């Protein structure tokens, strides 16, 4: 199968004021993702996970430099114009972030924010955009979506906000969803529900999923393959079962041991 996403020799660095050498955040990162594949990006804080997610979305801050190549769906993302990239976003490649409160506009009702995605990508009719938004909110498991759509972000729970973000990300049926620590800010019971929703949506749509997390527990229940990042390098790229059974690198082993229950599983 041809790759949906192919990352080749991706390097990202940032110039540090008062420091002559730029700081490397990603070093020669390479991996491929097939359509419909679920891949986890595992790493400790500062390993470069979020930088990778932002680089793939073309959302790196201006003072960051990215070199290498990111092929997605026939385009090379790093050299793509901002306009062309914007039309790919949401339509073909989407992202959900960790903190839904900061990712949502606090002054706009939830339904309107979801509808805005539809309108930004060509839906001229406001009523139809709103109806689409409510439908999407209800598909992401928001109870009473009709009523919730009229609320502001601060008027709903963290889990509901994350569902709303997911509704925005999935509205245009993307081929690839990047989820950056989507459940780290949530309570465990809500985390379990959101992960279940993510898995269900992934299967139903056959979309590819790149799930970024420091927690192998989150990745292992959702992704067939796992890429381990350490200090900006890919140190392991392996089936998740294989990683759980026999991590090859000491840094991977530490991440595996961190989620191992106190007694060996029966």
């Amino acid at each position, binding site marked *: 199968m041809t790759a949906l996403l192919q990352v080749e020799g991706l390097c990202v660095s940032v110039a540090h004021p008062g420091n002559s050498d730029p700081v490397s955040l990603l070093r020669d990162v390479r991996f491929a993702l097939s359509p419909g594949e679920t891949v986890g990006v595992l790493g*400790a*804080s500062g390993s470069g996970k979020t930088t990778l997610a932002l680089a793939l979305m073309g959302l790196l801050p201006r003072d960051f430099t990215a070199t290498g190549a990111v092929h997605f769906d026939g385009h090379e993302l790093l050299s793509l114009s901002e306009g062309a990239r914007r039309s790919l976003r949401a339509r073909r490649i989407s992202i959900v972030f960790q903190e839904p409160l900061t990712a949502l506009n606090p002054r706009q009702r939830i339904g309107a924010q979801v509808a805005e995605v539809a309108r930004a990508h060509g839906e001229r009719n406001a009523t139809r955009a709103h109806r689409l938004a409510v439908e999407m909110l209800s598909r992401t498991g928001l109870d009473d979506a009709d009523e919730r759509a009229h609320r502001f972000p601060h008027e709903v*729970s*963290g889990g509901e906000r994350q569902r709303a973000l997911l509704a925005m990300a999935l509205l245009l049926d993307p081929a690839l969803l990047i989820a950056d620590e989507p459940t780290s800010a949530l*309570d*465990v*019971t*809500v*985390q*379990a529900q959101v*992960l279940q929703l993510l898995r269900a949506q992934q299967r139903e749509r056959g979309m590819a999923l790149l799930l970024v997390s*420091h*927690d*192998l*527990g*989150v990745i*292992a*229940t959702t992704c067939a393959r796992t890429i381990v990042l350490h200090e900006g390098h890919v140190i392991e790229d392996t089936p*998740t*079962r*294989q990683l*759980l*059974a*026999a991590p090859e690198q000491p840094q991977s082993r*530490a*991440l595996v*041991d*961190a*989620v*191992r*229950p*106190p007694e*060996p*599983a029966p």
Partner: protein
Amino acid sequence: MTALLELRHLTVEYAARDRRAPAVDDLSLAISRGETLALVGESGCGKTSVGRAILRLLEPTAGSILFDGEDVRTMRGDVLQRFRRRAQVVFQDPNASLDPRMRIGEIVREGIDIHALMPRPKAELRVAHLLEEVGLPASTAARFPHECSGGERQRIAIARALAVEPEFLILDEAVSALDVLVRQQVLQLLATLQSRRKLTYLFIAHDLAVVERVATRVAVMHRGRLVECAPTRQLFSAPAADATRALLAAIPRIPWETRASGEGR
């Protein structure tokens, strides 16, 4: 073992809230010296209100809080001052709990000064020892909170709590904001400190997977009520309450291989 802390029929109601649904509803619980009691439940179950009531950060509607036999609610003067030294707290977000304008040394020393435990030069030496005890170089004292990582900040919050030689520590989601590796290191540190200093912990958390590693016993709250309290192993193997089962079900089920079946490649 005698109880260091005993809650009797503790009830907390917030004025603005619906009177029929107290945040903490007739909760009775005892914590023995030297144990780690985990208080768990989903967001909004009332677990943080319990911690705040113990620390007198909020006024309960009813019930008593006995610390070493004395009711915290009626303590005053020297007795209250002494309680405030003996019971300390570490919060979830060290970003919000450390004053950004103070150097780490001052932050850790503040409690020693407030309780006038020792003169300044000795206190500074004490701070250096405390920082080393929590695994940080003594030079950290000269830094500001924003110059430290999340894990370092949480170690600083622990050092600050230990500075006044407490016996009882409330750890309110103290490791929830940390990444799994740092979390493991901080849990390890807490375990070491507990055995070295004979500390008693109230470990407030929403994540049972973390609790399993550290708690002697687990108390589960649901909608303000205590629905189950059992030794950790028993709670995990034979949960009695629906709320406990729901929390257990939420732990990601990692598909560990049985060790015997050697995975091909």
